[in-house]
């Protein structure tokens, strides 16, 4: 830290220059990602149902216990691939049966969703399970 040439203003310039350069690079990568996303997110399949399902997912704070594509809480199972793991019927029956009230077991609240809302939620989970996630998770258990 004591070189004659490496002064505070050199350090400052590296900071400003480096930050701006790498932020611009980040924007370029973001632009490229945005161009390529339609191939992996299959946005053509985002129906009204899927959109409503996402809203239900959000307004019941599902992420507060579960993870979705690995992000969220780690208290309850991953749901990014739950459609493939369990299928539509199981998901619906499961949600209607909550809470189990089994003593000592982790409990999921009853969200009182209507049949139509359950359809929407399943549509969202189905679409989510079809996103190209580069092969993640490693197996069906999530």
């Amino acid at each position, binding site marked *: 830290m004591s070189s004659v040439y490496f002064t505070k203003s050199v350090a400052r310039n590296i900071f400003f220059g480096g930050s701006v350069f790498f932020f611009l690079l980040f924007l370029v990568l973001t632009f490229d990602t945005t161009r390529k996303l339609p191939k992996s997110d299959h946005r053509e399949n985002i129906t009204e149902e899927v959109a409503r399902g996402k809203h239900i997912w959000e307004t019941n704070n599902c992420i507060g216990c579960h993870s979705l594509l690995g992000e969220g809480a780690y208290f*309850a199972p991953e749901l990014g691939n739950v459609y493939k793991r369990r299928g539509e019927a199981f998901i619906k029956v499961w949600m209607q049966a909550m809470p189990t009230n089994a003593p000592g077991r982790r409990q999921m609240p009853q969200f009182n969703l209507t049949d139509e809302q359950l359809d929407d939620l399943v549509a969202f989970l189905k679409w989510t399970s079809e996103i190209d996630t*580069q092969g993640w998770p490693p197996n069906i258990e999530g």
Partner: protein
Amino acid sequence: MQYQSQLVAKPYFIAAIGLFIGQIIFGLIIGAQYVIGDFLFPEIPFNVARVVHTNLLVVWLLFGFMGAAYYLVPEESERELYSPKLAIITFWVFLVTGALTIVGYLAVPYATLAAMTGNDILPTMGREFLEQPLITKVGILLVVVSLLYNVTMTTLMGRKTSITIILLMGLWGLAFFWLFAFYNPVNLVLDKYYWWWVIHLWVEGVWELIMAALLAFVLIKVTGVDREVIDKWMYIIIALALVTGIIGTGHHYYWIGTPAYWQWWGSIFSALEPIPFFVMTLFAFSMVNRRRRDHPNKIATLWALGTAVTAFLGAGVWGFMHTLAPVNYFTHGSQITAAHGHLAFYGAYVMVVLAIISYAMPIMRGRVANSPQAQLWETWSFWLMTVSMVVITLLLTGAGVMQVWLQRISETPMSFMATQAELEIFYWLRLIGGGVFFIGLIVYVISFFIKGDITYLSDEKTIKKDAVQDAEEGKTTEEVAPSAAEVRVEEEAKPVVADEDARPDLSFVPTETSAEDKPTK
């Protein structure tokens, strides 16, 4: 304290500590729910308690940053705060908004809260860490903008130092990236992509500027090392942090539907992310070793050193552990993530806020530093909280490794819930760790009420004694002795104050390093 308006920081710090207590209580609740699944169910389901736990963390850290900014900016700018009144109004707005939000989480089901607060107009809720109702999100924005207006005006009208410039950049960046909290596209992949612009670009981006500025400020104060030296280190650290951290965002873009090339960008850049934290550790220890005098506030120095070390461990080492794409493929979304999250947040942000509180609070209470007795209590709290957090992290890491093994690597993978049952012993021990942490926090709070032998700032004897001591060290009276009342805390702590422009000759200071530290203009 040099400027009366710095006192506005006090309520911010008190609120921060109050909310910190709340955060830990809810942490204990969810820790208990990990082992007693139906604990407090259905009154406080896990998701609600977790939202309170994480949101309180973010809000109290924001209180801490804001208090730090209101304290630091007038002193650095060498003038009173632009509008102390606005700062106090802002405080109450933030506290009431925060309190009502927490009450909202606890009082009604989340879906009801969303419906009540206009989430249908602009849906932003229900995403991890961004669970706040729209009104709260707008409130946070307004509070931060008010802070920015106040401290930016103060800086513009006063002295501009590297520390204030970096602090302001950090705070402006915080406000800017918060705007992405309002962007919630229907397409989940896009949603997640820009969600990270708030989360990652906060904690591994602009917040690091705030942390570096606060750490630099505290180190200048407690070590008395020349500002020029500290500034240079600060710039090096934040340059490394942003150069690695911005593209490092890519380590979140491995498995969320984004192109595969992010595995390369993310792995390479985030593998470098520990470097700034390592340099920060070198920085803190090197500054303390070169200190020009022994500040009576030992515990503030300890917090500053602790920040550097624990941030390196939590953010640097534990971050690196699972950041490479081939590793992350197995560890993504496991307890490893939770382990890293806990130590990184505690080390980097909790500790730096506690460092600035530890330095500034005694001064705002008219003291040079807290009494040795009070500092002893605070030192105990430092070790209780830090060691228990390290233990919690190790236990969660153990749980994570076992989880990954049983659920993801094994030939016959177990289901999530079956795996969780196998991890119970880790979770029990973690809960005990949480209990010890809570005891540490109580000890911390008690330390504020321990009187002991306090040296008050107004105690002229101390100041005179310092002046005598300074004279003995060969300093001229002009340098040290303006009238006692004018003696600043800063100078009291370290007689040699080096402003960028008018820097005294330091060659008389008998340290090996000071000569080479002189500016090389």
